[in-house]
């Protein structure tokens, strides 16, 4: 009888505590500084599962380092992502370098960090292709990942038109990898990419391709903050990303993005692209 009574008292004490602890956010309150959860949008460079597999560990690392809670988000298509950043949906964003210029007037995203290795756009053809010069691509099918990809689409298209006077038939195939495969399998005469993503391809793919043109360099994809995010939070995030460079585990995770090493960037680093005359190749996102 006595034993039953003790068990009852223990149960009465434990049950409310468990109920409180089971409320969402209670536990987090004890681990994180504030209630605010910041959204961080990542451009859909990869298929969603792969993208989340790359970024979720990084975000968790970032949360640990900053004590700030983040909500990782992406979209199924680049077009949808462009609409989202135009609306300013995300507090933080990892996106196309030229986007920051495009939405600067509307949302004013502030670049924080970017890969120290600058990007350079490339035009590839099959290794055994007869095409030697971009000018020979006039009237040919050229694969691009998406209409507004700065390194893989806008710069190559801009240079093809302005420098080589070659009007190509674009074929948008979602990702850089898909561009390379299309070229390798002969589904397109050439394809637009960036050096960095070509290096990430398998040896088999790389050996099947040949670069016939390389564009000028430009800063890599930045992690930017929306101006509504408090400055101290931006500062924390900036420092945290930079601190990841010194951690082998974090660096290994960043390599999958791919990021060789983060450096601090400013809007001015990207603003130069507005003078390159690539606006006419930009395809504004229609609808919402």
């Amino acid at each position, binding site marked *: 009888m006595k034993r039953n009574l003790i068990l009852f008292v223990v149960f009465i004490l434990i049950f409310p505590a468990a109920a409180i602890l089971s409320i969402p956010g209670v536990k987090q309150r004890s681990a994180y500084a504030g209630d605010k959860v910041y959204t961080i949008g990542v451009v859909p460079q990869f*298929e969603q599962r*792969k993208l989340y597999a790359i970024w979720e560990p990084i975000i968790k690392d970032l949360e640990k380092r900053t004590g700030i809670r983040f909500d990782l988000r992406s979209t199924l298509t680049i077009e949808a992502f462009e609409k989202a950043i135009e609306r300013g949906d995300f507090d933080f964003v990892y996106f196309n370098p030229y986007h920051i210029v495009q939405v600067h007037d509307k949302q004013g995203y502030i670049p924080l960090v970017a890969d120290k290795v600058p990007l350079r756009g490339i035009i590839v053809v099959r290794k055994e292709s007869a095409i030697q010069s971009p000018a020979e691509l006039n009237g040919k099918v050229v694969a691009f990942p998406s209409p507004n990809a700065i390194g893989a689409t806008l710069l190559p298209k801009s240079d093809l038109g302005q420098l080589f006077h070659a009007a190509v038939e674009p*074929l*948008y*195939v*979602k*990702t*850089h*990898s*898909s561009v*390379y*495969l*299309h070229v*390798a*399998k*002969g*589904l397109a005469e050439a394809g637009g990419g960036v050096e960095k993503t070509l290096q990430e391809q398998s040896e*088999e*793919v790389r050996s*099947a391709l040949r670069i016939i043109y390389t564009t000028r360099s430009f800063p890599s994809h930045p992690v930017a903050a929306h101006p509504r995010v408090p400055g101290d939070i931006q500062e924390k995030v900036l420092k945290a990303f930079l601190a990841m460079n010194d951690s082998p585990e974090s660096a290994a995770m960043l390599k999958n993005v791919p990021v060789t090493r983060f450096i601090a960037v400013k809007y001015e680093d990207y603003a130069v692209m507005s003078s390159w005359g690539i606006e006419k190749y930009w395809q504004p996102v229609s609808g919402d």
Partner: protein
Amino acid sequence: MPLSLRTKVFLPLLILMALLIGYLYWGWMPQSLSNIERQYKGATERHLDSVVEGLIPLLLGRELDTIYENFDALLKKNSDWISIRLADSAGRTLYPLENTPSPESAANAQNVHILIKQIIYLNMNLGTLTVEIDHTPHLTAWKKEFHHAVAVMLAVIAVTVLSIGIVLERKVVQPVKALKQQAHALAQGKFGTLNLEAGEDEIGRLVDSFNTMKEKLAMSYNLLTQSEEKNRAITTTANDAIIMMDENGHVSFWNPAAENIFGYTAEEVLGKYLHSIIVPDRYKADYEKGLRYFSETGKGPVVGKTIDMAARRKDGAEFPVELSLSALQMKDKWHAVGVVRDITQRKLAEARILASLEEKELLLQEIHHRVKNNMQVISSMLRLQAGAVKDKNYITILNDSQNRIKAMSLIHEKLYQSKDLAHINFNDYSVDLTEELIRSYGADSGRVTIKIDSENIMLGIDTAIPCGLIINELVSNSLKYAFPKGRRGEVLIFLTKINEDEFELIVSDNGIGIPDDIDFRNTESLGLRLVTILAENQLRGTIELNRTAGTEFRIRFKEIKSEKKA
């Protein structure tokens, strides 16, 4: 070749096991593998359908990298997928990167199957997916599983069969062997073996029954042995020959007395034809006939009887024997057992007795004859004496005495004329006696008739003499007094046997009757007193007088048995 119990039990089990192995290996396993291959192929088809469904948006979106990642992952995950080939609607290979030879070229290998799926979206041909799948690893794994399962099954069966074998060996074969040995010992008359241990099962009950049977058999065997010893003692020590003959007439038993009586030893006659040995030639035909009938029916004219007959010894001499013959049936065959007694001495004694008897009969006959003659002399003397006497009373007395002596004389005459010299036919006697009386009294036989009926009863001399005297007295009275003055009438004499040993003699007449004032017991008449004395004292019987119609005397008596004289 007779099979042992062990073989009979194990052979079907081994055959069953072999059939099971055969079925498992050549029937069930190939069939199951075929089913598994079909199911696996179906599952792969369904999997490919899903893959195709997933490919449609990727193809529409030109997401070739994702397609490559998925296919690489599929190939990595499905080790039995040899290759995947994806071609667009124009036939251009989208996957793999390297243009490999068409999978159809490898399809000749065993268990390698090519699955081709058209990728159709809203009637739009997006391409063709070709997958080359080698079922060998899958089937090999299953084969390995089957072999393992079959091996386990066979091991279980083998252990089961072995267990059954051990149980059968211990619970059935060994006890049955022990039973066999015991039965063999029993067959040799060895009843002293220890009883087998009986378990609780059926075999145990069989063993228990066998033990009980053995004990009873031992008891019966002892009784039989004792009986046989007794019989042997009887037949060995018997003075009479005991001979047994089978249905074919062959000797099957011959005791020592038979050896003594007939002169043949048992070894000489056993199995020989009996009738050719001991039966005189003149009887052989009858014996043969009788034997045939006996063999079929167990019956015969002398079966169950004792007869005297002639037999023949080894030396050929014939001698009289008394044969008691009985029949017995063994195994549906009739056998005859004869007890033969040599009656040579008895026959000689009988002959001597017969001769002595004949001599005595002659002597007795002579005595009766001489008695009768002497009585006739007496009667003649009385008759002569009566002729010399004038007084009628004396004449009557002498005549009555003469008649009485005649009556007795007639009995002796009848006796020596009879066959056995001891009994006379009373009817014949009565007829002769009454004729003599009629003649004696000068009665007119036409006026007074005498009727006699005594049913040919034979009476001994001790009974016949009183009866004859009674008839003599009563008939004499009737002839003298019942029919006076020429009255006609009749006298009746009846002698009947009223029960086993009692007779009734009725002597009556229809004459005038005895006057009522005369008491026949207390009369002066010598005749009536004599009748009463003879009836009551001599015959120890009863006498009644009926005067209703004439005179009727009823005398009841039993025959007097002759007492041997010392």
